[in-house]
């Protein structure tokens, strides 16, 4: 039997793969085009390293000698020519890059520069009074209340606290260690005000301030509460 004689030939595996190649389309006069290319290369010398290009000659009418010269000029600039396009086979001589056809345009995707992330809102606005028993915690920034803060309510803010009404409850500003935070209110009747961990209770707040517009701020390690205006 000839079964043993049958040679097992290794399979040649073909795989498709496509590459994006840049295409140069020289225009006459070639000398000007080359100097333009030089100028571009001066701007980014490494751009074509490792990126062979295809030369599209459909816009120019060149003799085989001129084509050879052009290819040489380009290669002298360290750009490898992968193939030619848009020229008859007859004009090509041996040793030139092969003629390519069937190239398709591809949209070079412009990578949009990443937009900077929208800034997180750093302020919380409350247009209703803060009622007894409610606790508003906003560690990311300032809290503004367009009303009163009832006794038994509390506001905890990473930044400053602004109360356009009576502050009767507790206000804690700068809880994340922001000692520059302040507390402002139209009418101070607070149970407790605190900035960055330093606090004063109602008893410690100067009685002369009660019911007046005031601001509280830190001065070193002590809290100062002073009347506004």
């Amino acid at each position, binding site marked *: 039997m000839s079964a043993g004689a049958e040679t097992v030939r290794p399979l040649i595996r073909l795989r498709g793969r496509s590459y994006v190649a840049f295409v140069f389309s020289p225009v006459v006069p070639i000398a000007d085009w080359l100097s333009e290319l030089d100028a571009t290369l001066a701007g980014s010398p490494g751009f074509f390293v490792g990126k062979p290009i295809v030369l599209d000659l459909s816009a120019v009418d060149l003799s085989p000698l001129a084509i050879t010269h052009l290819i040489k000029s380009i290669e002298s600039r360290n750009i490898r020519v992968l193939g030619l396009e848009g020229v008859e086979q007859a004009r090509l001589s041996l040793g030139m890059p092969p003629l390519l056809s069937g190239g398709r345009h591809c949209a070079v995707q412009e990578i949009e520069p990443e937009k900077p992330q929208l800034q997180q809102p750093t302020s919380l606005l409350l247009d*209703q*009074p803060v*009622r*007894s*028993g*409610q606790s508003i915690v906003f560690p990311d920034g300032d809290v503004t209340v367009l*009303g*009163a803060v*009832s*006794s*038994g*309510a509390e506001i905890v803010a990473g930044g400053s606290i602004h109360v356009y009404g*009576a502050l*009767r409850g507790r206000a804690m500003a700068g809880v994340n260690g922001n000692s520059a935070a302040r507390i402002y209110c139209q009418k101070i009747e607070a149970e407790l005000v605190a900035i960055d961990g330093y606090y004063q209770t109602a008893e410690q707040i100067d009685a002369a301030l009660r019911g007046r517009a005031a601001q509280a701020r830190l001065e070193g390690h002590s809290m100062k509460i002073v009347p506004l205006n």
Partner: protein
Amino acid sequence: MAKVLVVTSGKGGVGKTTTTAAMGAALAQAGEKVVVVDFDVGLRNLDLVMGAERRVVFDLINVVHGVAKLPQALIRDKRLENLWLLPASQTKDKDALTEDGVGRIIAELRKTFDWVVCDSPAGIERGAMLAMRYADEAIIVTNPEVSSVRDSDRIIGMLDSKTVRAENGERVEKHILITRYDAGRAARGEMLSIDDVLEILATPLLGIVPESQDVLRASNVGCPVTLNSPASAPARAYHDAMRRLLGEEVEMQIPSERKGLMNLLLGRRAA
């Protein structure tokens, strides 16, 4: 258009049940079809104040649990044919109410009545939450004293966050009713002034009901004060409040100490 009105307060003993009965009766007298619902399960009182305690067969819990049908549990008032009562249970505890059950009953009551007036238990527990859960409007009953006002503030906060309306982004219409107001003591500074209360609560005022023996007397004979002694100062205050609730413009009467001299004379005579 049926409206669910909850009568609520944070603190106990401020006059919620009295107000529920009085407002319910006043609305019924004005021709509205009213049901007053006692949500104070375990401590039923509204039936006493309404004088219907001896006619209670089925109650709210029975209806919630499907033991009785709603019409079986509704008690019609003997004096006003527009007024009905849905009593609370005295034997079951306050956890016997469920949100679904309450929702079903309120929806059913809405079909029949113009006003569903819910008497809330005091506090911020589940019973109080369920009473306010489906409310369209709320009367927050407050005495002119700091503890009552602070608790009312808390309740207003809950009305703005825990009700079905609030969760749907709507508003529960809120009204403050100041009860047990003693003009004499307010003048002497022993009570918070009306202005102080309103400034703290930042909610519109529905009425001021003066402290009066008439309220106690009415409650003890089992008759809403608006029915029992319609000419009395608290009855007039409740009537005015009812008219404001119906959208009328009524001038606010701040109880004054006009009877002071008389009281003084009587007081001296008694002493």
